[in-house]
């Protein structure tokens, strides 16, 4: 286990050290001590390493992650794992707004609650929230899966494209063009896999599925001439 103590080193040195880890590094386990809510911790990683952050983080922890597994032993500030490409980010506590925004791939697990705009504009990422999510989550979400074991706030899935939304609890309101959809066997399969991988104590059958009504996909023209 390699330790980087942010009480001793600056953010730049910490990230540069992690960025220097190549595909075949032997130093695969890293621990970041004293994060003290710093922004941009462990962003832009691109190696199969495991990074454990011993505390809470500021904005954009794990941003644009590729390959790495990042465990946050606290809560995460806005934009955690934004634009993630692959790998895994696990948050023991809560996540602030925009968690997993625009993510293209990988798995984001939030063991507490997520604030507003969770999964906004997601593009293939899988997000599992053990608790609740805030308003405007999955706004303009393009693809991927958002699993919510608790409740969802207002305007879930507004202007949704092809992302799949699974909610176990209540949904305060659905956003424009977001509708409840039939849960088919393939969806239960996806759910079972994500619940297992994220360590969530829930059964696929307990969820409802929401998706795009696809009414906004084309302009409605009376007579195009």
């Amino acid at each position, binding site marked *: 286990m390699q330790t980087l103590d942010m009480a001793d080193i600056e*953010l*730049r040195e910490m*990230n*540069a050290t992690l*960025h220097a880890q190549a595909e075949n590094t032997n130093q695969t386990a890293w621990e970041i001590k004293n994060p003290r809510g710093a*922004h*941009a911790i462990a*962003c*832009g990683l*691109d190696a199969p390493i495991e990074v454990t952050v011993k505390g809470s983080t*500021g*904005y*954009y922890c794990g*941003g*644009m992650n*590729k390959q790495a597994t990042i465990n946050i032993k606290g809560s995460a500030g*806005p*934009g955690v794992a*934004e*634009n993630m*490409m692959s790998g895994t980010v696990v948050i023991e506590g809560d996540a602030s707004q*925009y968690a997993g*925004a*625009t993510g*293209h791939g990988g798995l984001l697990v939030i063991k507490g609650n997520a604030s507003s*705009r969770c999964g*906004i*504009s997601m*593009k*293939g990422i899988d997000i599992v929230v053990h608790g609740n999510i805030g308003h405007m989550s999955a*706004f*303009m979400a*393009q*693809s991927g899966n958002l699993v919510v074991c608790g409740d969802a706030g207002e305007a879930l899935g507004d202007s949704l*494209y*092809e992302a799949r939304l699974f909610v176990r609890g209540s949904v305060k309101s659905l956003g424009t063009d977001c509708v409840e959809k039939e849960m088919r066997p393939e969806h239960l399969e996806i759910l079972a896999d994500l619940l297992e991988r994220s360590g969530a104590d829930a059964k696929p059958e307990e969820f409802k599925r929401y998706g795009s009504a696809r009414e906004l*996909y*084309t*302009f*409605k*023209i*009376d*007579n*195009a*001439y």
Partner: protein
Amino acid sequence: MTDTTNGAPRTTPIQSATFSDPINAEIRRAAATGIYDIRGGGAKRKLPHFDDLLFLGASISRYPLEGYREKCDTSVTLGTRFAKNPIKLDTPITIAGMSFGALSGAAKEALGRGATLAGTSTTTGDGGMTSEERGHSNKLVYQYLPSRYGMNPDDLRRADAIEIVVGQGAKPGGGGMLLGQKISDRVAEMRNLPKGIDQRSACRHPDWTGPDDLEIKILELREITGWKVPIYIKVGGARPYFDTTLAVKAGADVVVLDGMQGGTAATQDVFIEHVGQPILACIREAVRALQDLGMHREVQLVVSGGIRTGADVAKAMALGADAVAIGTAALIALGDNDPKWEAEYNALGTTAGAYDDWHEGRDPAGITTQDPELMQRFDPIEGGRRLNNYLRVMTLEAQTIARACGKSHLHNLEPEDLCAVTMEAAAMAKIPLAGTDWYPGKPNTSF
């Protein structure tokens, strides 16, 4: 007014200036279709512009440089504030962001070829970075847009600069639009969208909401790219003093300021014509913001929106810009709206020079389309040659003017080299009306 047709005096028909033919035609079109007019390009209305400014030239009180022999430098370095690797350009005329999707892959390649030959940079757009564009662009600026289509850390690190797009002049406060006709398989894959949908991009970034957040976003982008490349912030011409101030405070290396004449691939006509300010009204306010912060020339200012000639370039720089960007003009140089396609423009219900339905994907010139047959008409090598020629002509023109004003570098042009020929231009550009030492709003003066 009366007429005596048919013997009896009668009133002749008078067209309303308010309900003019074009207005009435638009009312009828809206009534028939139920959708607002969507088009490309920038504001078409007549606006105070660079044409309303003139250079004074040199005489006894100013000493000119020999037109063809004495050195007049045109180089510019962008991103000197924080980036380890600022961008060094031979000419201050850059190519503005235009998306793959709005343009064909070959057109993007041509922009890269032409820019590289001329020693300047080109810019991606709201569709991600294509291999053609990266491969043919020596200096490529990677746009970071609200949609984040195709955004990934590998392309971010392959870029020579990052441009965070907050807004653009054609539609400050609005997002992009790409209609289904142009969402081909490749475009759909790059944007992670279903093929053939009418795609409307977000108008706000998904993971930051204000200038304090933006500062942290810039920190993240710098950390991901190792603080190597410059970070630009692009804004539309809305509130240039405040937007420039906030961009600098958020940590920008470069501010890109786009007036309402700047083009877009597609948006509502009402947005293009009625939101934003002309570039002439924006430049001095942005420069004032930089000067108030002590950052003029340290944070570079790139202006765009209706740059067409070397004279426009020289005037923008005299007003305080460090560089300019061209979009619409670059497309025209490539062959867009060329009269040689007039019969086909007529068939589309328009004429060369007025064609702006780029979103429909039926561009006869094969530039703003994803149609395989139309794309075949455009040769990226020839397009690159033409763009390079055009950039070189504009650079030579700007040099000609600078030498006539006694300047050994385009950056030495200054507001004192200019006069205005209209009151509006004088007020907007804060340049004295020709024959006077006064402009409307000049401190300690009254009208």
